[in-house]
Protein backbone atom coordinates (compact mmCIF):
# COMPACT_ATOMS: atom_id res chain seq x y z
CA UNK A 1 0.00 0.00 0.00
CA UNK A 2 2.82 2.30 1.02
CA UNK A 3 4.52 1.55 -2.29
CA UNK A 4 1.49 2.46 -4.34
CA UNK A 5 1.06 5.70 -2.44
CA UNK A 6 4.64 6.85 -2.86
CA UNK A 7 4.61 5.69 -6.46
CA UNK A 8 1.52 7.77 -7.09
CA UNK A 9 3.20 10.84 -5.63
CA UNK A 10 6.30 10.31 -7.80
CA UNK A 11 4.02 9.86 -10.81
CA UNK A 12 2.34 13.17 -10.11
CA UNK A 13 5.78 14.75 -9.74
CA UNK A 14 6.72 13.41 -13.15
CA UNK A 15 3.61 14.92 -14.69
CA UNK A 16 4.10 18.22 -12.87
CA UNK A 17 7.70 18.38 -14.04
CA UNK A 18 6.47 18.06 -17.62
CA UNK A 19 8.90 15.25 -18.29
CA UNK A 20 9.77 15.51 -22.01
CA UNK A 21 9.48 11.78 -22.57
CA UNK A 22 6.01 11.71 -21.03
CA UNK A 23 4.93 14.69 -23.11
CA UNK A 24 6.25 13.14 -26.29
CA UNK A 25 4.48 9.83 -25.72
CA UNK A 26 1.24 11.60 -24.84
CA UNK A 27 1.29 13.80 -27.92
CA UNK A 28 2.08 10.84 -30.16
CA UNK A 29 -0.79 8.88 -28.65
CA UNK A 30 -3.22 11.70 -29.24
CA UNK A 31 -1.93 12.32 -32.74
CA UNK A 32 -2.15 8.69 -33.84
CA UNK A 33 -5.56 8.03 -32.33
CA UNK A 34 -7.01 11.31 -33.52
CA UNK A 35 -5.74 10.59 -37.03
CA UNK A 36 -7.25 7.13 -36.99
CA UNK A 37 -10.58 8.49 -35.72
CA UNK A 38 -10.49 11.14 -38.44
CA UNK A 39 -9.58 8.64 -41.17
CA UNK A 40 -12.29 6.25 -39.99
CA UNK A 41 -14.78 9.13 -39.79
CA UNK A 42 -14.20 10.19 -43.38
CA UNK A 43 -15.00 6.68 -44.55
CA UNK A 44 -17.50 5.45 -41.98
CA UNK A 45 -19.85 8.43 -41.76
CA UNK A 46 -20.80 8.39 -45.47
CA UNK A 47 -20.79 4.58 -45.41
CA UNK A 48 -23.19 4.59 -42.47
CA UNK A 49 -25.34 7.04 -44.44
CA UNK A 50 -25.47 4.77 -47.45
CA UNK A 51 -26.28 1.68 -45.37
CA UNK A 52 -29.04 3.56 -43.55
CA UNK A 53 -30.56 5.06 -46.71
CA UNK A 54 -30.35 2.25 -49.23
CA UNK A 55 -32.64 -0.72 -49.14
CA UNK A 56 -30.80 -3.93 -49.96
CA UNK A 57 -30.92 -7.61 -49.26
CA UNK A 58 -29.29 -8.58 -45.95
CA UNK A 59 -29.31 -5.04 -44.56
CA UNK A 60 -30.58 -6.13 -41.14
CA UNK A 61 -27.98 -8.90 -40.96
CA UNK A 62 -25.20 -6.50 -41.94
CA UNK A 63 -26.17 -4.04 -39.21
CA UNK A 64 -26.25 -6.88 -36.67
CA UNK A 65 -22.80 -7.98 -37.80
CA UNK A 66 -21.44 -4.45 -37.49
CA UNK A 67 -22.83 -4.20 -33.97
CA UNK A 68 -21.24 -7.52 -33.08
CA UNK A 69 -17.89 -6.09 -34.18
CA UNK A 70 -18.14 -3.23 -31.65
CA UNK A 71 -16.38 -5.37 -29.09
CA UNK A 72 -14.00 -7.13 -31.44
CA UNK A 73 -10.89 -8.10 -29.41
CA UNK A 74 -8.18 -5.65 -30.38
CA UNK A 75 -5.60 -8.40 -30.75
CA UNK A 76 -7.65 -10.11 -33.46
CA UNK A 77 -7.82 -6.83 -35.37
CA UNK A 78 -4.10 -6.48 -34.77
CA UNK A 79 -3.53 -9.94 -36.21
CA UNK A 80 -5.73 -9.26 -39.22
CA UNK A 81 -4.01 -5.98 -39.99
CA UNK A 82 -0.64 -7.59 -39.41
CA UNK A 83 -1.44 -10.23 -42.03
CA UNK A 84 -2.61 -7.50 -44.43
CA UNK A 85 0.43 -5.25 -44.18
CA UNK A 86 3.27 -7.66 -43.37
CA UNK A 87 5.86 -8.01 -46.09
CA UNK A 88 4.14 -10.96 -47.76
CA UNK A 89 0.60 -9.60 -47.24
CA UNK A 90 -1.55 -7.96 -49.92
CA UNK A 91 -0.59 -4.46 -48.70
CA UNK A 92 2.99 -5.39 -47.91
CA UNK A 93 4.37 -3.01 -50.51
CA UNK A 94 3.17 0.00 -48.54
CA UNK A 95 5.70 -0.65 -45.76
CA UNK A 96 3.19 0.15 -43.04
CA UNK A 97 4.33 -2.41 -40.48
CA UNK A 98 5.97 -0.95 -37.36
CA UNK A 99 5.20 2.61 -38.39
CA UNK A 100 2.79 5.29 -37.07
CA UNK A 101 0.93 5.15 -40.42
CA UNK A 102 0.38 1.43 -39.91
CA UNK A 103 -1.01 2.10 -36.41
CA UNK A 104 -3.35 4.75 -37.78
CA UNK A 105 -4.54 2.32 -40.44
CA UNK A 106 -5.00 -0.50 -37.92
CA UNK A 107 -6.81 1.62 -35.34
CA UNK A 108 -9.04 3.06 -38.06
CA UNK A 109 -10.11 -0.49 -38.91
CA UNK A 110 -10.58 -1.25 -35.23
CA UNK A 111 -12.95 1.67 -34.65
CA UNK A 112 -14.80 1.41 -37.97
CA UNK A 113 -17.61 -0.89 -36.77
CA UNK A 114 -18.45 1.36 -33.84
CA UNK A 115 -18.39 4.46 -36.04
CA UNK A 116 -20.53 2.97 -38.79
CA UNK A 117 -22.95 1.52 -36.26
CA UNK A 118 -23.31 4.68 -34.23
CA UNK A 119 -23.66 6.75 -37.39
CA UNK A 120 -26.53 4.51 -38.50
CA UNK A 121 -28.19 4.89 -35.11
CA UNK A 122 -27.66 8.66 -35.23
CA UNK A 123 -29.18 9.00 -38.71
CA UNK A 124 -32.10 6.72 -37.89
CA UNK A 125 -32.93 9.19 -35.12
CA UNK A 126 -33.55 12.03 -37.59
CA UNK A 127 -37.25 12.34 -38.32
CA UNK A 128 -38.35 11.07 -41.75
CA UNK A 129 -39.97 14.46 -42.39
CA UNK A 130 -36.49 15.96 -42.69
CA UNK A 131 -35.73 13.53 -45.53
CA UNK A 132 -39.05 14.29 -47.19
CA UNK A 133 -38.46 18.02 -46.89
CA UNK A 134 -34.99 17.78 -48.40
CA UNK A 135 -36.23 15.53 -51.19
CA UNK A 136 -39.19 17.76 -51.89
CA UNK A 137 -36.94 20.82 -52.10
CA UNK A 138 -34.98 19.12 -54.87
CA UNK A 139 -32.05 17.47 -53.07
CA UNK A 140 -30.31 14.56 -54.78
CA UNK A 141 -29.87 11.30 -52.87
CA UNK A 142 -26.34 12.29 -51.84
CA UNK A 143 -27.50 15.76 -50.80
CA UNK A 144 -30.27 14.19 -48.70
CA UNK A 145 -27.70 12.00 -46.93
CA UNK A 146 -25.48 15.01 -46.24
CA UNK A 147 -28.47 17.00 -44.97
CA UNK A 148 -29.47 14.22 -42.59
CA UNK A 149 -25.87 13.84 -41.36
CA UNK A 150 -25.86 17.56 -40.65
CA UNK A 151 -29.13 17.25 -38.73
CA UNK A 152 -27.59 14.47 -36.65
CA UNK A 153 -24.24 16.24 -36.28
CA UNK A 154 -24.15 16.05 -32.49
CA UNK A 155 -24.70 12.29 -32.43
CA UNK A 156 -22.29 11.79 -35.34
CA UNK A 157 -19.59 13.80 -33.54
CA UNK A 158 -20.20 11.61 -30.52
CA UNK A 159 -19.54 8.55 -32.68
CA UNK A 160 -16.20 10.00 -33.80
CA UNK A 161 -15.24 10.91 -30.22
CA UNK A 162 -16.09 7.40 -29.02
CA UNK A 163 -13.94 6.00 -31.81
CA UNK A 164 -11.10 8.27 -30.71
CA UNK A 165 -11.51 7.06 -27.13
CA UNK A 166 -11.40 3.41 -28.17
CA UNK A 167 -8.33 3.96 -30.36
CA UNK A 168 -6.54 5.84 -27.60
CA UNK A 169 -7.10 3.19 -24.96
CA UNK A 170 -6.47 0.04 -26.99
CA UNK A 171 -3.19 -1.80 -26.79
CA UNK A 172 -3.49 -4.76 -29.19
CA UNK A 173 -3.13 -2.96 -32.52
CA UNK A 174 -0.66 -0.41 -31.14
CA UNK A 175 1.63 -3.17 -29.90
CA UNK A 176 1.34 -5.62 -32.79
CA UNK A 177 1.39 -3.09 -35.63
CA UNK A 178 3.44 -0.32 -34.03
CA UNK A 179 5.92 -2.53 -32.27
CA UNK A 180 6.40 -0.08 -29.37
CA UNK A 181 9.52 1.46 -30.89
CA UNK A 182 10.87 4.15 -28.62
CA UNK A 183 10.56 7.66 -30.02
CA UNK A 184 8.65 6.38 -33.05
CA UNK A 185 5.64 4.18 -32.34
CA UNK A 186 5.61 4.13 -28.55
CA UNK A 187 2.28 5.37 -27.23
CA UNK A 188 0.65 5.62 -23.81
CA UNK A 189 -0.82 2.14 -23.66
CA UNK A 190 2.22 0.31 -25.01
CA UNK A 191 4.60 2.15 -22.72
CA UNK A 192 2.43 1.44 -19.71
CA UNK A 193 2.60 -2.27 -20.57
CA UNK A 194 6.35 -2.10 -21.07
CA UNK A 195 7.25 0.04 -18.05
CA UNK A 196 5.07 -2.06 -15.78
CA UNK A 197 6.76 -5.24 -16.91
CA UNK A 198 10.13 -3.59 -16.32
CA UNK A 199 9.12 -2.47 -12.84
CA UNK A 200 9.07 1.28 -13.56
CA UNK A 201 5.82 1.68 -11.74
CA UNK A 202 6.02 5.47 -11.25
CA UNK A 203 6.34 6.11 -14.95
CA UNK A 204 3.54 3.61 -15.63
CA UNK A 205 1.29 5.32 -13.15
CA UNK A 206 2.08 8.74 -14.55
CA UNK A 207 1.16 7.58 -18.05
CA UNK A 208 -1.93 5.83 -16.71
CA UNK A 209 -3.12 8.98 -15.00
CA UNK A 210 -2.67 10.90 -18.24
CA UNK A 211 -4.57 8.27 -20.20
CA UNK A 212 -7.46 8.35 -17.76
CA UNK A 213 -7.47 12.16 -17.80
CA UNK A 214 -7.73 12.24 -21.59
CA UNK A 215 -10.55 9.69 -21.51
CA UNK A 216 -12.29 11.80 -18.91
CA UNK A 217 -11.86 14.90 -21.07
CA UNK A 218 -13.36 13.04 -24.04
CA UNK A 219 -16.34 12.06 -21.92
CA UNK A 220 -16.85 15.60 -20.67
CA UNK A 221 -16.71 16.81 -24.25
CA UNK A 222 -19.25 14.16 -25.23
CA UNK A 223 -21.63 15.21 -22.48
CA UNK A 224 -21.21 18.81 -23.44
CA UNK A 225 -22.08 17.96 -27.05
CA UNK A 226 -25.15 16.07 -26.02
CA UNK A 227 -26.21 18.96 -23.84
CA UNK A 228 -26.29 16.91 -20.65
Amino acid at each position, binding site marked *: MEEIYSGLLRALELIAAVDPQVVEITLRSIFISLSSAFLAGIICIPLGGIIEFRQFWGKRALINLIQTFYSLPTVTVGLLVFLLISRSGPLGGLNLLFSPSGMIFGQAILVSPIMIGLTITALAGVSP*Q*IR*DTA*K*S*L*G*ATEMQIIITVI*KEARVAVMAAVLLGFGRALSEVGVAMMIGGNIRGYTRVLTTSIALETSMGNLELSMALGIILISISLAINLLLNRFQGR
Partner: protein
Amino acid sequence: MALLEVRSLSKSIGPAKILEGIDLTVERGEILGLIGPTGSGKTTLLRLINLLDEPSTGCILFDGRMVFGKPEKELLCARRKMAMVFQKPVMFKASVETNVSYGLRMRGRVDATGGEMSMSDMVEEALAAVGLSGYESRDANTLSGGETQRIALARALILQPELLLLDEPTANLDPGSAASIDNLLQRLAGSRTAVILATHNMQQCRKLAGRVAVLQAGRLMAVGKSEEITLPW
Protein backbone atom coordinates in the same frame (compact mmCIF):
# COMPACT_ATOMS: atom_id res chain seq x y z
CA MET B 1 -50.80 20.81 -72.96
CA ALA B 2 -51.64 20.70 -69.26
CA LEU B 3 -48.83 21.18 -66.77
CA LEU B 4 -49.89 18.15 -64.76
CA GLU B 5 -51.99 15.22 -65.73
CA VAL B 6 -52.93 12.54 -63.23
CA ARG B 7 -54.33 9.37 -64.80
CA SER B 8 -56.30 6.74 -62.87
CA LEU B 9 -53.95 7.01 -59.94
CA SER B 10 -54.43 4.60 -57.04
CA LYS B 11 -52.55 4.07 -53.83
CA SER B 12 -52.96 1.19 -51.43
CA ILE B 13 -51.05 0.72 -48.23
CA GLY B 14 -51.34 -2.91 -47.22
CA PRO B 15 -54.98 -3.87 -47.60
CA ALA B 16 -56.18 -0.26 -47.27
CA LYS B 17 -57.08 1.61 -50.45
CA ILE B 18 -56.11 5.19 -49.74
CA LEU B 19 -56.72 6.62 -53.22
CA GLU B 20 -58.65 5.07 -56.09
CA GLY B 21 -58.84 6.02 -59.73
CA ILE B 22 -57.89 9.68 -59.49
CA ASP B 23 -58.02 11.60 -62.80
CA LEU B 24 -57.03 15.23 -62.65
CA THR B 25 -55.37 17.90 -64.76
CA VAL B 26 -53.77 21.14 -63.67
CA GLU B 27 -53.18 23.95 -66.16
CA ARG B 28 -50.24 26.34 -66.00
CA GLY B 29 -50.80 29.24 -63.63
CA GLU B 30 -54.14 28.07 -62.23
CA ILE B 31 -55.04 27.61 -58.60
CA LEU B 32 -56.83 24.33 -58.03
CA GLY B 33 -58.52 23.79 -54.69
CA LEU B 34 -58.35 20.23 -53.34
CA ILE B 35 -61.04 19.94 -50.75
CA GLY B 36 -61.95 16.96 -48.65
CA PRO B 37 -62.68 15.94 -45.10
CA THR B 38 -59.96 14.68 -42.83
CA GLY B 39 -58.58 11.32 -43.92
CA SER B 40 -59.90 11.66 -47.47
CA GLY B 41 -56.41 11.36 -48.99
CA LYS B 42 -55.36 14.96 -49.76
CA THR B 43 -51.88 14.62 -48.29
CA THR B 44 -51.41 11.23 -49.93
CA LEU B 45 -52.30 12.69 -53.34
CA LEU B 46 -49.98 15.68 -52.95
CA ARG B 47 -47.11 13.39 -51.97
CA LEU B 48 -47.67 11.26 -55.05
CA ILE B 49 -47.73 14.34 -57.26
CA ASN B 50 -44.50 15.59 -55.65
CA LEU B 51 -42.97 12.19 -56.53
CA LEU B 52 -42.16 11.42 -52.91
CA ASP B 53 -44.06 8.12 -52.91
CA GLU B 54 -44.89 5.64 -55.62
CA PRO B 55 -48.47 4.97 -56.67
CA SER B 56 -49.85 1.42 -56.73
CA THR B 57 -51.26 1.91 -60.22
CA GLY B 58 -51.83 4.77 -62.62
CA CYS B 59 -49.49 7.45 -63.83
CA ILE B 60 -48.58 11.10 -63.67
CA LEU B 61 -47.54 13.24 -66.61
CA PHE B 62 -45.62 16.36 -65.77
CA ASP B 63 -45.10 18.75 -68.68
CA GLY B 64 -46.46 15.99 -70.90
CA ARG B 65 -43.85 13.47 -69.81
CA MET B 66 -44.48 10.29 -67.87
CA VAL B 67 -42.62 10.39 -64.61
CA PHE B 68 -43.02 7.18 -62.65
CA GLY B 69 -40.89 4.22 -63.57
CA LYS B 70 -38.23 6.57 -64.86
CA PRO B 71 -34.70 6.73 -63.47
CA GLU B 72 -34.26 8.85 -60.35
CA LYS B 73 -32.52 11.52 -62.42
CA GLU B 74 -35.71 12.26 -64.36
CA LEU B 75 -37.83 12.20 -61.22
CA LEU B 76 -35.45 14.71 -59.69
CA CYS B 77 -35.70 16.91 -62.74
CA ALA B 78 -39.50 16.97 -62.52
CA ARG B 79 -39.43 17.35 -58.74
CA ARG B 80 -37.22 20.40 -59.10
CA LYS B 81 -39.99 22.15 -61.03
CA MET B 82 -42.34 21.72 -58.08
CA ALA B 83 -42.30 22.68 -54.44
CA MET B 84 -44.41 21.35 -51.62
CA VAL B 85 -45.28 22.89 -48.28
CA PHE B 86 -46.15 20.12 -45.87
CA GLN B 87 -49.10 20.15 -43.53
CA LYS B 88 -46.74 20.14 -40.56
CA PRO B 89 -43.55 21.67 -41.93
CA VAL B 90 -40.22 20.90 -40.29
CA MET B 91 -37.17 23.16 -40.29
CA PHE B 92 -33.55 22.11 -40.69
CA LYS B 93 -31.40 22.81 -37.62
CA ALA B 94 -30.06 26.06 -38.97
CA SER B 95 -30.92 29.71 -39.43
CA VAL B 96 -34.01 30.87 -41.27
CA GLU B 97 -31.80 32.11 -44.10
CA THR B 98 -30.14 28.69 -44.51
CA ASN B 99 -33.56 27.05 -44.52
CA VAL B 100 -35.05 29.41 -47.07
CA SER B 101 -32.08 29.17 -49.44
CA TYR B 102 -31.90 25.36 -49.14
CA GLY B 103 -33.55 24.50 -52.45
CA LEU B 104 -31.47 27.02 -54.36
CA ARG B 105 -28.26 25.63 -52.91
CA MET B 106 -29.28 22.07 -53.72
CA ARG B 107 -29.73 23.22 -57.32
CA GLY B 108 -26.11 24.32 -57.29
CA ARG B 109 -26.68 28.04 -56.89
CA VAL B 110 -23.80 29.85 -55.30
CA ASP B 111 -24.01 33.39 -54.10
CA ALA B 112 -22.86 36.48 -55.99
CA THR B 113 -23.18 35.41 -59.59
CA GLY B 114 -22.84 38.45 -61.82
CA GLY B 115 -26.02 40.01 -63.15
CA GLU B 116 -28.54 37.78 -61.38
CA MET B 117 -30.11 38.61 -58.08
CA SER B 118 -27.88 37.48 -55.22
CA MET B 119 -29.10 34.61 -53.08
CA SER B 120 -29.43 36.79 -49.98
CA ASP B 121 -31.58 39.26 -51.94
CA MET B 122 -33.79 36.39 -53.01
CA VAL B 123 -34.11 35.24 -49.40
CA GLU B 124 -34.98 38.77 -48.37
CA GLU B 125 -37.64 38.96 -51.04
CA ALA B 126 -39.15 35.61 -50.12
CA LEU B 127 -39.28 36.56 -46.44
CA ALA B 128 -40.92 39.87 -47.29
CA ALA B 129 -43.53 38.00 -49.34
CA VAL B 130 -44.61 36.00 -46.29
CA GLY B 131 -44.42 39.01 -44.01
CA LEU B 132 -41.36 37.93 -42.03
CA SER B 133 -38.73 40.43 -43.14
CA GLY B 134 -35.66 40.52 -40.94
CA TYR B 135 -35.96 36.90 -39.78
CA GLU B 136 -32.81 35.78 -41.67
CA SER B 137 -30.57 35.05 -38.71
CA ARG B 138 -33.23 33.56 -36.42
CA ASP B 139 -32.80 29.91 -35.40
CA ALA B 140 -35.47 28.19 -37.48
CA ASN B 141 -36.27 25.73 -34.72
CA THR B 142 -37.33 28.41 -32.25
CA LEU B 143 -40.11 29.78 -34.46
CA SER B 144 -43.77 29.60 -33.54
CA GLY B 145 -46.07 27.25 -35.45
CA GLY B 146 -47.44 30.04 -37.61
CA GLU B 147 -43.97 31.45 -38.33
CA THR B 148 -42.72 27.98 -39.24
CA GLN B 149 -45.61 27.60 -41.67
CA ARG B 150 -44.78 30.89 -43.34
CA ILE B 151 -41.02 30.21 -43.51
CA ALA B 152 -41.86 26.88 -45.13
CA LEU B 153 -43.91 28.79 -47.68
CA ALA B 154 -41.01 31.19 -48.31
CA ARG B 155 -38.69 28.18 -48.70
CA ALA B 156 -40.94 26.93 -51.51
CA LEU B 157 -41.71 30.30 -53.13
CA ILE B 158 -38.05 31.20 -53.55
CA LEU B 159 -37.77 28.32 -56.04
CA GLN B 160 -40.36 29.92 -58.35
CA PRO B 161 -41.82 26.49 -59.03
CA GLU B 162 -44.10 25.74 -61.94
CA LEU B 163 -46.30 23.82 -59.53
CA LEU B 164 -46.71 24.71 -55.88
CA LEU B 165 -48.29 22.07 -53.64
CA LEU B 166 -49.76 23.51 -50.47
CA ASP B 167 -51.10 21.18 -47.79
CA GLU B 168 -53.41 23.27 -45.61
CA PRO B 169 -51.03 26.22 -45.51
CA THR B 170 -53.21 28.37 -43.28
CA ALA B 171 -54.43 25.71 -40.85
CA ASN B 172 -51.98 26.78 -38.11
CA LEU B 173 -52.42 30.50 -38.57
CA ASP B 174 -54.51 33.11 -36.83
CA PRO B 175 -57.13 34.80 -39.05
CA GLY B 176 -54.89 37.81 -39.72
CA SER B 177 -51.88 35.84 -40.94
CA ALA B 178 -54.16 33.45 -42.81
CA ALA B 179 -55.64 36.39 -44.68
CA SER B 180 -52.19 37.71 -45.60
CA ILE B 181 -51.20 34.29 -46.95
CA ASP B 182 -54.43 34.21 -48.94
CA ASN B 183 -53.55 37.61 -50.40
CA LEU B 184 -50.11 36.35 -51.31
CA LEU B 185 -51.66 33.36 -53.08
CA GLN B 186 -54.07 35.65 -54.88
CA ARG B 187 -51.11 37.60 -56.18
CA LEU B 188 -49.50 34.34 -57.30
CA ALA B 189 -52.58 33.65 -59.40
CA GLY B 190 -51.85 34.95 -62.86
CA SER B 191 -48.12 34.31 -62.49
CA ARG B 192 -46.75 31.21 -64.16
CA THR B 193 -46.92 29.24 -60.92
CA ALA B 194 -49.79 26.77 -60.71
CA VAL B 195 -51.00 25.90 -57.22
CA ILE B 196 -52.78 22.91 -55.76
CA LEU B 197 -54.23 24.05 -52.48
CA ALA B 198 -55.41 21.26 -50.16
CA THR B 199 -57.83 22.50 -47.56
CA HIS B 200 -60.96 21.73 -45.54
CA ASN B 201 -62.13 25.25 -46.05
CA MET B 202 -64.63 25.83 -48.88
CA GLN B 203 -64.58 29.58 -48.31
CA GLN B 204 -60.83 29.68 -48.93
CA CYS B 205 -61.39 27.66 -52.10
CA ARG B 206 -64.08 30.01 -53.38
CA LYS B 207 -61.85 32.98 -52.72
CA LEU B 208 -58.63 31.68 -54.25
CA ALA B 209 -59.25 28.77 -56.54
CA GLY B 210 -60.59 28.89 -60.05
CA ARG B 211 -61.46 25.22 -59.96
CA VAL B 212 -62.08 22.85 -57.12
CA ALA B 213 -61.60 19.08 -56.88
CA VAL B 214 -63.61 17.33 -54.20
CA LEU B 215 -62.02 14.30 -52.59
CA GLN B 216 -63.95 11.92 -50.39
CA ALA B 217 -62.75 8.58 -49.04
CA GLY B 218 -59.99 8.40 -51.63
CA ARG B 219 -62.16 9.15 -54.67
CA LEU B 220 -62.64 12.33 -56.63
CA MET B 221 -66.35 13.13 -56.33
CA ALA B 222 -66.39 16.24 -58.51
CA VAL B 223 -64.13 18.68 -60.30
CA GLY B 224 -65.41 22.02 -61.47
CA LYS B 225 -65.52 25.78 -61.21
CA SER B 226 -65.41 26.80 -57.58
CA GLU B 227 -68.70 28.70 -57.67
CA GLU B 228 -70.51 25.73 -59.22
CA ILE B 229 -69.36 23.09 -56.76
CA THR B 230 -71.52 22.16 -53.82
CA LEU B 231 -70.06 19.87 -51.24
CA PRO B 232 -71.64 16.44 -50.81
CA TRP B 233 -71.31 16.62 -47.03
